[in-house]
Every structure is written in structure tokens, then in C-alpha cells.
């Protein structure tokens, strides 16, 4: 089923290094572009083609769309670099160390997953004790708490134990300040201290870190499978695929990956990451390690089968050409599941009920 989706075929071919074999003149570029745009992967596949010097073989009109999406990715990277510098200017004088997460981290560390990566917010992690002074330091330098209504403010501060995203007054850019990689109200409890211990310092920027490659992979796995947003599903699988290929595959570092997952109590997300990147993008992960991670994740057969159906359907690119019967329901169930994992159940119902009300009266567009 997934094999029939052009974008997935394309990504698999990239992984196998067979893109140069495409019939460039007769390929269905239009469909590929439409699916990729919808999956937020257009810039990425454009960069893939550019790096392999295959763009010139693409017919003019689709080539133009690829080039345009590269402009977008380059602008995003420029802006990200600048934002992080400004955040650093705000936090460093107060001696607040911080770790870059996700897109911003990929750009600064120049990982393969930085290729064509688009993102809006800058995510950083500080220690829990620094949370309030970090918020103050940023506010002093021009950021402010967005005008969320009281409900959302409480959602962030009391239930999620986070400060709401801060927006820069002049640049209108957003920074999300975390103190852990999963909301503290979640059932999983990876210890932030362990993440800091393995974090890599960035050259020439004292107090600025990124997660170790193994921790980046685990964070990405956790973010994908425990967040409500599945519009980015395939994009995050692609990030994982690129990270695994860059940092684990070359020297078979599977043992360290598994051990670290145990240490951080992230065994189940790791199982999902390994299982699904292998099945969707054919990441070269030895079956043995997928099986090991399944054991560690402690899933029974029925659970695995059920999750399979939901994930595989929900992770296809969200475009009408990829519509699989039941996708609407699958998306919704996964959304519910994510929130179940983030918040104790008694907090769950009021939040979800209100969110759908807001959507129905057209007030919220998130």
C-alpha cells in the first residue's frame, strides 16, 4: 500500500542511491511535488536532487518548483542561525546554558537531517532551575509571552509544566523553552540530567549545546510518536531515517542506541522509530535490533498489530492521492493517543472537548 505512494518510492530510492536511474523526462513530477509539498518534504527532496546534481535533468517547470523550495529552506536556515544567535545573546550574559532541539539543532550541527528542513519555532532546553530566569532574560531582550487566553496559559504552565512559547516583538519569531524533551506530565520520564551529560558543545558559542546524535534520534522518535500532529509524520520519519543512516548505520551502533533508550526509559518510542522507518523508508536496520527493541518496549502481539494499522495509515503524506480508507479516524485516534501519553487522563477530557469546540466555531486555526 505504501509502496504505491510516489513520494515514498522516491525517498526509498534516495536511500538506496538509485535516484539517478529515474526516467527524468517522463517521471510524474507534478504528483511528487504535490505529495511532497503536503508532507512538508518539498525542500528536502529538492535538496536531495540538488546535492546529487540531478536537478538539471528535471524538466523546467518542476525544476523551478524545486529551486523555489530551496530558496525557502535557505531563508529558513539563515533565520534560524540568526535567531539562535539572538537567543544566545540574551541567555549567555545570565550564564544560562541551553540545548538546541530539533530543526534548529540540525541546522547548527549540520546533520543530514538539516537538508531542506523547514521549521517555524526555535526549540531550546534549559535546566528546570533556569526556566524562570531564562524567560526573564528573553523578555528583557524583546520576546514576550504570546497573547494566549488564560486557558492556554494554564495549559502550558500548570499542566504541561512549561512556559508558553515566547514571541519576539519585532521579528515575530517564536522560541519554545523546555526543560525536558517530553512534557513532564507524560507517563515517560527521561531524566534531563542524563541528556545534558551527553550533550555536545557547539564551537565558538559557549553555553550552547546540541543533544548527542543518539539522543537526537531518541528525541525525534519521542516527538514523532507522542505528539498530536501527524501532518509532520512522514517528515519526522525522514529525519529519523537520515539520522540513523548518518550516525548509527555506518558503524553499527545499534547496541549503544538500545542501551541509551533503556537508560532514558524511551524503549517504546525507539521500537516505533526503528520499526516504522524500516518499514516505510527501508532504513537498513537489522531485524534483530528491531526485535530487541520490541522486547524492551514490552508490547504484546495485539498492541503491535493495532498500532501498525494506525501508524502506517496516518504516516502516509496526507494528500488526497494517498487517501486510504479510514484515514480520518486513524488520525484522530492517534491524536487522542498522543494526548493520553502527555497528560494524566483526568486532565484530558476538558482540554480535548474545548479544542474541538474552538475548531467548530472557527476561532482557532491550530
Amino acid at each position, binding site marked *: 500500500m505504501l509502496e504505491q505512494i510516489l513520494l515514498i518510492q522516491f525517498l526509498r530510492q534516495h536511500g538506496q542511491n538509485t535516484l539517478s536511474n529515474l526516467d527524468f523526462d517522463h517521471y510524474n513530477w507534478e504528483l511528487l511535488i504535490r505529495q511532497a509539498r503536503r508532507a512538508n518534504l518539498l525542500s528536502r527532496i529538492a535538496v536531495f536532487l540538488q546535492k546529487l546534481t540531478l536537478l538539471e535533468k528535471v524538466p523546467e517547470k518542476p525544476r523551478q518548483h524545486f529551486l523555489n523550495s530551496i530558496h525557502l529552506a535557505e531563508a529558513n536556515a*539563515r*533565520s534560524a*542561525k*540568526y535567531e539562535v544567535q539572538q537567543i544566545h545573546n540574551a541567555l549567555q550574559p545570565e550564564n544560562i546554558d541551553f540545548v538546541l532541539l530539533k530543526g534548529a539543532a540540525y541546522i547548527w550541527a549540520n546533520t543530514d537531517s538539516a537538508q531542506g528542513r523547514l521549521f517555524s519555532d526555535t526549540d531550546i532546553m534549559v535546566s528546570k532551575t533556569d526556566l524562570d530566569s531564562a524567560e526573564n532574560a528573553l523578555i528583557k531582550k524583546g520576546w514576550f509571552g504570546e497573547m494566549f487566553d488564560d486557558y492556554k496559559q494554564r495549559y502550558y504552565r500548570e499542566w504541561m509544566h512549561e512556559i508558553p512559547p515566547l514571541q519576539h516583538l519585532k*521579528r515575530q519569531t517564536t522560541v519554545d523553552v523546555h526543560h525536558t524533551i517530553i512534557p513532564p506530565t507524560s507517563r515517560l520520564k527521561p531524566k534531563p540530567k542524563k541528556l545534558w551529560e551527553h550533550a555536545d558543545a557547539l564551537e565558538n558559542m559557549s553555553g550552547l549545546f546540541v543533544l548527542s546524535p543518539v539522543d537526537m534520534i531518541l528525541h525525534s522518535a519521542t516527538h514523532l510518536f507522542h505528539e498530536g500532529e501527524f501532518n509532520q509524520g512522514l517528515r519526522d520519519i525522514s529525519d529519523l531515517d537520515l539520522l540513523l543512516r548518518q550516525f548509527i548505520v555506518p558503524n553499527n551502533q545499534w547496541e549503544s542506541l538500545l542501551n541509551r533508550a533503556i537508560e532514558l526509559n524511551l524503549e517504546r518510542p525507539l521500537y516505533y522509530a526503528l520499526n516504522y522507518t524500516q518499514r516505510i523508508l527501508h532504513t537498513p536496520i537489522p531485524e534483530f535490533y528491531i526485535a530487541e527493541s520490541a522486547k524492551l518496549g514490552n508490547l504484546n502481539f495485539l498492541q503491535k498489530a493495532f498500532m501498525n494499522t494506525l501508524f502506517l495509515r496516518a504516516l502516509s503524506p496526507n494528500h488526497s492521492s494517498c487517501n486510504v480508507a479510514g484515514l480520518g479516524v486513524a488520525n484522530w485516534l492517534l491524536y487522542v493517543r498522543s494526548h493520553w501519553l502527555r497528560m494524566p487522563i483526568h486532565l484530558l477530557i476538558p482540554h480535548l472537548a474545548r479544542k474541538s469546540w474552538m475548531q467548530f466555531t472557527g476561532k482557532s486555526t491550530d
Partner: protein
Amino acid sequence: MTLLFHSWNDESVVYNASSADLHLLSSFNAELLSLIKKEAPQPMLMTKISDYYQIAEMEAKKVLDDLISEYLKLGLLD
């Protein structure tokens, strides 16, 4: 930090692609900015300023300091 300059007569536009800030400066000030970024020696800058405004060297130093302080505020220098 790369700055792009373009001048027409006595005014220049200066663009910082990283911060996405666009500035309008007098061409003289833009020229000074460019020289400061290239780390031109201070005496040279002060002579330029005192010649242009027909003022004494002491005043030229103040003008230069004020200018640098403005540029720092605008993010044109770091």
C-alpha cells in the same frame, strides 16, 4: 555578518540578509560603516570625518563613537 550596500548619490541602502534588516543611511555614513567593518585604522576614520564635516579631530572622535554606538544598536556591527 555580511552587509550589502547600494548607493544613489548621497544616500545608501544597507541590507543584512541574516537579520533581514534593511537600513537607509547617508552615503558618507555607509562608507564609514563599510570601512569600520574592514577594520580601517581609527586615525584614518577620524581624518575622514573631520575633513567631511570641517571639524576638529576631538569632535571627530565623538562623532565616530556616536556612530559606532548607533551601528551597534541597529545590529549593523557586533
